[in-house]
């Protein structure tokens, strides 16, 4: 069982908006969809796409602001002809709070 960390309230992210979480493993974009689903994926696909928290979000996808690649937020897969995948981080919502897997803390956390 992986553990979860509180990163903020659902209300801290506007609908169809995104915010950044800075982790020891890098920047993570946390999205809130129009239907209040929460997704977390890596902010960057190095050399290819990002920063994804700056993209336009539609349904459960986000369009990369630089090259217009479209990523599925649930799987992290690039859609259409583009090939690539951003890491997806597990999230949960409990009582209006967003929890993210402790794995984002990487080895720093595991070492404790």
């Amino acid at each position, binding site marked *: 069982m992986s553990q979860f960390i509180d990163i903020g309230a659902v209300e801290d992210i506007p609908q169809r908006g995104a915010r950044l979480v800075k982790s020891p493993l890098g920047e993570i974009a946390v999205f809130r969809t129009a239907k209040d689903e929460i997704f977390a994926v890596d902010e960057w696909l190095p050399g290819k796409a990002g920063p994804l928290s700056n993209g336009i979000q539609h*349904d459960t996808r986000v369009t990369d602001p630089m090259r217009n690649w479209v990523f599925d937020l649930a799987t992290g897969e690039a859609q259409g002809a583009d090939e690539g995948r951003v890491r997806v981080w597990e999230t949960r919502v409990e009582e209006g709070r967003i929890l993210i897997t402790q794995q984002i803390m990487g080895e720093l956390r595991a070492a404790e």
Partner: protein
Amino acid sequence: MTQKIIVIGAGMASGRVLETLYENGADVDVTLFNAEPRGNYNRIMLSPVLAGDQTYQDIVTHDDAWYAERNVTCRFGEKVATIDRAAKTVTAENGDVLSYDKLVFGTGSNPFMIPLPGHDLEGVIAYRDLEDTEKMMGLGEGNKAVVIGGGLLGLEAAAGMAARGVDVTVVHIMGHLMERQLDEAAGYLLRKALVDKGITVKCSANSKEIVGENGKVKALMLDDGTELPCDLLVMAVGIRPNVALAKECGLAVGKGIHVDDQMLTSDENVLAVGECVEHNGAIFGLVAPLYDQAKVAGQTLMGEEAAFVQKELSTKLKVTGCDLFSAGDFAEGEGREDIVFRDPARGVYKRLVIEENKVVGAVFYGDTADSNWFFGLIKDKTDIADMRETLIFGPAFQGGEPLDPMAAVAALADDAEICGCNGVSKAQVVAAIQGGANTLDAVKAVSKAGSSCGSCSGLVEQLLSVTLGDEFVMPEKETVCKCTDMTHDEVRKLIVMKELKSLPGVMQELNWSTPDGCHVCRPALNYYMVCAWPGEYADDGKSRFINERVHANIQKDGTYSVVPRMLGGITNPKELRAIADAADKYNVPTVKVTGGQRIDLLGVKKEDLPAIWYDLGQAGMMSGQAYAKGLRTVKTCVGSDHCRFGTQDSTGLGIQIEKAMWGAWSPHKFKLAVSGCPRNCAESTCKDLGIICVDSGYQILVGGAAGLDLRETDLLCQVATEEEALEYSCAFYQLYREGAQYLHRPYKWIKKVGLDWVKEQIVEDAENRKALAERFHYSQQFFQVDPWAERAVKGVDKHEFEPLADFTKTQVAAE
């Protein structure tokens, strides 16, 4: 020698006889009798008239001018009293005696009225002509109507009246609707669709008596005692060929007027066409064979050899928006097998009847896209053994053909029927196209395909595309994106017309196919509403590209660039110091002078944006909107203040214009320049709008570009004063803002609408110019708000600039 022809009845069949004669230049003198007080109209289209989708004027096939041009003597509203075949004369009701060389019967049919008690009451009608249609159109909400007959005509009458709010009951004697065309399952789906529209359907119901009051219909009584109250009763139970006149003059008559393959009756000088004839024991009600008969009759009259052949018939119907198709024989029987496909959720039902590995019948409900292909299989008696497993899925699934409507059309046999109404084959349409008909209208005119009910227009367009290849530009429009079938222009018009002022509103009302659009349509829709409803529409930042959302230009490493506005390219030591201080304070790696005469601070971290804006704002600077699809800069030269060549104060005018325009959003970025003399130091001739000052005033130039495309401006006009230069500039910007497609620069838009049109709107129409400028200024009061100050001072969109959480600095305990 001119042939004297008398035609009795101006219907669709006899109309087509006349067309055949005149199109082939026949030397004829025609007199046309019609009992109805009007000429030929498209009777099939009475249902759309009833439903209110079309008007009578829309369905007239031959108007007065048509007859006049061809010198047809029209005797409309007049009946023929008697015919003397020996003398070859016709006597009209008023006693006029007219002689003929050839006589053509096109007397059509009479609706069959069941002789129920009360059938002659007022308010009991058939569904046959315009008068009947008008009576039904006279009903509305609060009225009740009963339709006897659940065939095509009856259901169209019912649906048309229901659409007008009438409470309609259909009474049908058989177990399911349209039993001649549909099997029970399809009949059930149709019934369900009608019931969903609020129509009451009673099958296996026998009518007993029509109840009246004061000579007017009041209700229909069924034999089980049910009484159905009604203000109007429509009988649509069938037709009988109208043979009375033919019989009186001694022609051979059975169910209809007997004709041979040349459409000649038992008298070689008398022909008959249409619903009044009987050919080899059959009578006719659908339009396709009537047109065939008419063509043959025309050829016979011209002395050409032609023969009418009865063909396998298919029916493609649209009842109340339900797509139906049936062809061949679909009765169950020994040695017959069925292949059935159902998709209840979509309301689709398809059934093929197979006999000895051939398709002998087909019934489709809900999805009739492939019906032509199946009809071809029936007509050609194709052996389907090899494709039986996937047959029901249609041609796209046979032999690995791609799922592409073009391929399906290309694969149709030459004799495949494209236009069922006019019996036009694929080969005929293709021949018309190869003969030079390169638009849908041209094909209609030449081949008649698509000229009756119009349901084959899509097929014709596909044939145009297949035949002409790249030469044919599908009228198909460039849609906004995959979320909609509409073009930018259509969406824009509807936003204004339907007063749509929110994104969900647009997507709901305009039938968007995705839940909340995509990165292509959302920014466009957002702009269209920003432009259409200043002060009313709430700008949606989530539908803006990142640069516009955070009011800075994103760089490839995720940092931003900051460009403060410098009106007309003028700055001062205070501003320059503030910029220098900010560059130091926020470790700005690059400071660059831009082409738009201002200073760019590149490499600012997103979190620092509000703070750097705050500092710049303290020195009196605001956003330069260097990131906006909107007003960017007004570049100027120094003008008459300093330059020995300067003719006017170009810097001053540039500042005035920039003061008026800053903050405005537009379809794309908008760059201006004002040069003080024709030496053009501010490079006005490659801007979206450029002004060149001359001794006598100001030349206003529009539609330049110096990006991917390089384009010199065109002269819009020359004006005398600064005030005019400002008014014309604002009017031009507003015209562009209101008309151009999102992401089109002015030069692209001008290419589309034409410079002449722009001149008409702005130069020639002073009132319109003033109105445009006023609309621009009205809108500006809502948009001339410095977005940097909003964020730096008021904390707008704070979430954009701060991380939600930062675990790189602090340790957090796990839960």
